[in-house]
């Protein structure tokens, strides 16, 4: 049981390093004014950017706008991108800040959208427990955007608490605490529903 888990962890870590290397080389190409490298960045980070934006704003249309804004920003500042130490965290940091801005703007406009799907089955053929999933979406939407961001960064982007703290401009312990509280609240909401 321990060996397969360790192997999985090593495989995940290796994939993360590979992704980081590919992103770094894409950033280098962008710095040399090769705009086509943005497609590689999109393929490598598009899902993370969209996911974090969706979890921040709770709105698919805002999330799409944020994805566009993030990549437009990268296109504008492409010449200085070769100085970025950790490209993935840099992109997630831009997304996180835009997410909060968009959320505040949406709150001011008091616009509401239909219930959205934050999650989807990991395997396409697995469409079971649709009702449970709807309960989960509802519970996630009841959390505040900062809690949702931390949950996404921790459990879907697979970041460590120190990386989350760096991206969100938080203390390491605050980041870990927020994540713990978010999970507790999520559990409490789900328990109340069931």
């Amino acid at each position: 049981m321990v060996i397969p888990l360790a192997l999985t962890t090593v495989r995940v870590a290796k994939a993360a390093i590979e992704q980081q290397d590919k992103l770094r080389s894409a950033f280098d190409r962008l710095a040399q004014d090769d705009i086509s490298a943005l497609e590689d960045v999109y393929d490598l980070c598009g899902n993370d950017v969209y996911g974090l934006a969706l979890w921040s704003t709770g709105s698919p249309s805002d999330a799409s706008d944020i994805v566009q804004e993030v990549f437009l920003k990268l296109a504008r500042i492409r010449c200085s991108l070769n100085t970025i130490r950790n490209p993935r965290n840099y992109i997630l940091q831009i997304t996180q800040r835009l997410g909060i801005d968009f959320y505040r703007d949406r709150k001011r406009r008091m616009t509401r959208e239909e219930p959205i799907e934050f999650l989807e089955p990991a395997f396409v053929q697995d469409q079971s427990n649709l009702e449970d999933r709807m309960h989960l979406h509802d519970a996630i939407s009841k959390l505040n955007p900062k809690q949702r961001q931390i949950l996404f960064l921790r459990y879907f982007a697979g970041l460590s608490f120190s990386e989350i703290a760096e991206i969100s401009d938080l203390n390491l312990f605050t980041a870990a605490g927020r994540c713990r509280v978010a999970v507790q609240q999520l559990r409490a909401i789900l328990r109340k529903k069931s």
Partner: protein
Amino acid sequence: MSHQIFSNLRAARVPESLKERVLSRCQAISSEPYESATNTSWLDSLLQASATVAVLLFTVTCLSLFVSDQIAIPFTRFSRLDSRSEKGIVTNKEASWIVIRRGTSWL
């Protein structure tokens, strides 16, 4: 690193249609900074011209102050201080400090 609450689930994926839209906008914007750098507006030109005039005026004022009494005083008094130092009233070092202080006081 998944939590048991989210087991067998993954975050929603980015819509397929978004990629083309985003990349085409980026392609369009990639040529913008160079265009704006070459096509300066009349307001930019006016601001540049007024900044140049301000710098020239400042230089001329400084030069005229330097030539006039206001900055020249410490230098003219230096000889008087020098003669006092020769008489032993102030030392050379003290005289130099007095000159530097007066010379920089107008700043």
